[in-house]
C-alpha cells in the first residue's frame, strides 16, 4: 500500500488486489462491522499447545 515512486506503472500488485477484494468481501458479508469479520475468522483458529524447548546448553555460573 506504499505510494509508488512517480513514473512507475500505476497498477495494484497482486497482494494489494487480494487485500482490496478481501475488504469488499468482508463488507459484503458483515456490512460495516469489520470487527465481526475478524472475530469470526479468529474464532476458528486453533492455538497449538506451547511446548517448552529444553536446550542442552553448557550452563555456567561463575564470578
Amino acid at each position, binding site marked *: 500500500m506504499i505510494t509508488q*515512486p512517480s513514473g*512507475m506503472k500505476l497498477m495494484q*500488485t497482486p497482494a494489494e488486489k487480494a487485500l482490496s477484494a478481501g475488504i469488499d468481501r468482508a463488507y459484503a458479508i458483515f456490512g460495516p462491522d469489520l470487527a465481526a469479520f475478524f472475530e469470526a475468522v479468529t474464532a476458528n483458529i486453533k492455538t497449538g499447545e506451547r511446548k517448552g524447548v529444553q536446550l542442552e546448553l553448557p550452563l555456567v555460573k561463575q564470578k
Partner: protein
Amino acid sequence: MIVPDPNFRPNPDRAIYVQGTIDQGTVDRLTPEIIKLTVGNRGPITVFIDSPGGNVASAEVILKLLQATNQDNDPACWLITVVTSRAASAAADLLSSGNYAIAYPESTLLYHGVRTPSVSGITVELASLLAESLKISNDRYAMALTRKSEWRFMFRFMGLRGKFAEHRTATGNPRLTELDCFVAMLRENISNKAKPVIDQAYKRYLRYNDLITHFLKVATRDKRFMASAGGGKAYSEGVMLRGIINFEIASNKKNKDWTFQDGGLVRLTDDFYLLQEYFSSVTSEQFKEICGRWGQYVLTEEQKAELAVVPAEEKEAKTLEKVRPHFQPLWSFFVALCHALQEGENELSGADAFWLGLIDEVIGMPHLPLTRYLAEYQADPELPQGPEKNLQPKELPSEFAVSAPQESGNAPA
C-alpha cells in the same frame, strides 16, 4: 478457512538479512543480493531485520534499491519485513517500510528522532541551525512514517470500530467520539511502556484542535484570505501566525510571568509547524485515498443513496465531504502519533507496535485482527452446510452460496 498467500508469508529463499549496525558496509554487502533478487523477478522479497539502526542515509539507499522499478517500469517488488530480535531507530523505520511487516514474539522495536554525532565548537548560530535542521528531519521522518503505516492504522481503526458502541455502554458515556473510543481501546491493548506515546499523541491532537479554532476565527474575518483562497503562501502564513498569537495570549492570560520573550516565541514557532503539519496532512492525496477506500464502511444507507444520484464528475468531492468528518480526527491523531514517536525513546513490544499501526502481525498471536486474514480467508467449499461453519454472514453474497444437495432421480416431480 485460511489459505496461505505468499504475499503475506516470509520466504527465506527470496530474502536479504539486515543485521548489525546499518552503514555503507551494509549497503555494499546487500546491493548485489538485492539486484539478483529484483532483476527478472518481481515476486515478494522478505527482509529479515536484527539491527540497532545506524546511518539513515544507508537505510534509505537499501530501501530505495528494494523499491526500485525495472526497465519495463513494473511496480516495486512487494516487501515483507520481519524483525527477528531487534529493530531500533533506522531499522524500525525499515521494518515499518515493508508492505507487510511482521515481528517475532519477544522482539523489541525502538522508534525515536534523528540525532547527529556531537559537533565540536558549537556556536549560537550553529546550535540554532542544528536545532532547526533536526526538527525538519524529524518532521520529514514523521510524515514518511505516516505514509508507510496509514493503511495499517486504518485497519486497526476499522477492526475496532464495530465495538465502539459496546465501549460507550461499558463506560457509561454515550457521548464519546469515535476517536475517544478508539484511543481508549488502544490503551487497553498496549503495555504500560507504550502508553506515554499515545498520551503524548492525544495531547498533540488536542492542541491541533485548539490552534485550528483560533486560526479559523482570524481567517474567517480576513477578507483577503477568504476571497482568494489563502491570498498567497506568505499571506496565509501570516494569518496562521496571527491565529497562533491570539491563541497563546488567550491560553496564558492567567500567567502574569508569561511573555513571548521568555519562551513564548519558541512555542509560537512550534505551533506554527504544528498547524502547517495539520493542514498538509488533511489536504493530502493520501487522506483522500483513505476516504475513498473506506468510505463504504462509514456512510449510512441514506448517504449512499444521496451519492448514487450525484453526477460522476462531482461524486469524488461529495463523497469526500461526507466521509471526511469520520476520518479527519483519526488521520490527525495518526499524524500526531507519528510525530510523537520521533520525540523521546519509544521502546515497543511487537504487540504494542501492532496496535499502534506500525506493523501488521506478531508471530504467535493469531487472535489479533491480522490484515492478511482479509486476503487469505476463503469460504470452505467442502462443507455442505457452508454458512454454519464458515463465517456467519448478514447477507450471503452469491459467491458464498452453497448449492443445494442434488435431488435423487426418483423424487416426485
